[in-house]
């Protein structure tokens, strides 16, 4: 045991010695960015640092909900955060973000498509606070070889023949979105009867579900673990590349269009640098680099033009024409009381 202790000491000190060097100070200050994990091409950060001499202090989170308390508490003073729609709604309501000065971010108006600003109005009514960064839909991914007929409806998630072959989303709002849409209601419904009906539907569905997962739908579907899964469109292209039997559909009852957008925090210490960073991200060639790295759809029309692979450029999965679908909605923040109620219902589903 003594030896292992010695070993721990040796490894730790040698690693410390090796990594002691580095961390150069930049003259033009810094910008502190808080983003989803793996949500930017690391080269982009380097290019920005080289071009502007501004150091990017980069930090990552894995869900909107783990990001929020850190930002609210102000423990680390971030400049820019990239939350999802309903979370931006909440942050605006709580006064955590500041209005953007689009004059200093000319690329944002020039290259980000108008339809995305239009969609953003559901959570940022006057387009004052946010710049869309990534977007997508939620749909069904199924394995052609494991289903009896093509899937078009959320109803299939309640079909008993797929018992133990269904992967549901393990997040409250996504799960309720599926049930609400299936029942023909709005996914932003606050009506008690509708929500209770959705809850009952989810309880009814539970015995058929193999697992409630978030990110692992991807790996499980590639590995033929299940026939049907609820998944984000950004993952669909990747999964199809790995397993050609997989098909992605947006169900006919409609679905959720989600948008992750950049916002600037109220007390951002490096406002000017943050504006430069946002403008940089909105350049078409930079947005393209990011799109290629993270595979989630970019709202940057300039970047969409630059895509060389025709299949992807015209892919209805990556860039669906939103006007073609009915009942497309975006999540709104519906207040703390609603959150509590929904969580209570979800708990009842889970513990059943």
């Amino acid at each position, binding site marked *: *045991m*003594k*030896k*292992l*202790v*010695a*070993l*721990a*000491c*040796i*490894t*730790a*000190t040698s*690693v*410390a010695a*090796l*990594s002691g060097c580095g961390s150069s100070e930049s003259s033009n200050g810094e910008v*502190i960015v*808080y983003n*989803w*994990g*793996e*949500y930017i091409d*690391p080269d982009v950060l380097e290019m920005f640092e080289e071009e502007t001499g501004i150091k990017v*202090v*980069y*930090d*990552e*989170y*894995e869900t909107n909900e*783990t990001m929020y*308390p*850190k930002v609210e*508490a*102000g*423990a*680390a*003073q*971030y400049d820019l955060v990239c939350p999802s729609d309903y979370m931006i709604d909440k942050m605006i309501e709580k006064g955590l973000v500041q209005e953007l000065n689009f004059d200093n971010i000319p690329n944002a108006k020039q290259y980000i498509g108008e339809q995305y600003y239009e969609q953003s109005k559901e959570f940022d009514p006057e387009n004052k606070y946010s710049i869309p960064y990534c977007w997508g839909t939620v749909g069904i991914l199924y394995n052609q070889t494991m289903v009896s007929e093509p899937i078009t409806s959320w109803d299939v998630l309640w079909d008993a023949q797929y018992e133990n072959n269904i992967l549901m989303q393990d997040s409250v709002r996504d799960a309720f979105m599926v049930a609400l849409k299936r029942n023909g209601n709005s996914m932003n419904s606050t009506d008690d009867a509708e929500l209770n009906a959705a809850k009952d539907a989810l309880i009814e569905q539970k015995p058929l579900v193999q697992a409630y997962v*978030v*990110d692992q739908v*991807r*790996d*499980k579907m*590639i*590995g033929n*673990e299940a026939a049907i899964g609820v998944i984000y469109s950004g993952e669909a292209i990747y999964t199809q590349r*790995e*397993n050609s039997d997989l098909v992605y559909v947006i169900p006919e009852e409609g679905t959720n269009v989600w948008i992750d957008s950049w916002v600037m925090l109220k007390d951002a210490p490096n406002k000017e640098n943050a504006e430069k960073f946002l403008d940089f991200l909105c350049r078409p060639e930079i947005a393209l680099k990011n799109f290629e790295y*993270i595979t989630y759809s970019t709202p940057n029309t300039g970047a969409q033009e630059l895509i060389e692979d025709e299949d992807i450029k015209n892919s209805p999965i990556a860039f669906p024409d939103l006007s073609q679908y009915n009942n497309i909605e975006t999540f709104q923040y519906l207040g703390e009381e609603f959150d509590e109620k929904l969580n209570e219902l979800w708990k009842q589903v889970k513990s059943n």
Partner: protein
Amino acid sequence: MTQKKQASERFTGFLKKFYVFLIFVFLYAPIVTLMVLSFNASKTRSKWGGFTLKWYFELFENEAILKAFSNTMIIAFLSALIATILGTAACIGIRNMKKRHQGIIMGVTNIPMLNAEIVTGISLMLLFISLGIKTGFLTVLLSHITFNIPYVILNVMPKLKQVNNSTYEAALDLGASPVYAFFKVVFPDILPGVFSGFLMAFTMSLDDFIITHFTKGAGLDTLSTKIYTEVKKGIKPEMYALSTLIFITVLILLILVNKMPDPKAKEKA
């Protein structure tokens, strides 16, 4: 008769070895899986895409991962060391208190262990904010020391209870100073507990994610926080490669150190 006895002893000997072997299979099955995945050309863990070494090359170009690795090691080492010193001293002190006081302090000590990690994490974050300490390396280190100490105490306390007080008192009677007597008589007896406490603390620190997440500042990452943020886009195979390298290195060093003659054994001989 003796033959029969020998045979049965050999049989129980075999059973014992087999039992230990089975436990090792259980403990190492996932590790082997991870190693195999590090050579998988496909990025997903559920499909075998052929053998490759490319993740190992990419690992050494990935500065973010290497930096996270060194942060992890430094924090684990420092926090385990400080926790071991504080914890061992505390054990000796607590041992000399009244029984009732001992009970209270041990109860408090166990709180970080019995609290859900997320509660510890958030409450520490709130504490640092209210004290005006900017979250960063220091706050992570302080938090790690805090949740490490109970593991040290839990390992040292049972050892200390077994120490025979009369030997120590005999040493004092023979004129040894308390400090000298302690290090000559008591300390060697509790040393294995101190070591296992350090090791466990080191291990817990390596593994922690939640408390680190809430107490770290912008730009500071450990391997755990890096892995958790990668979950959304899938774990990078470089992580498997790094884990494999860590594992192999430690294993080889262990075997080498084990092969070396024990200086203490020589002394005795």
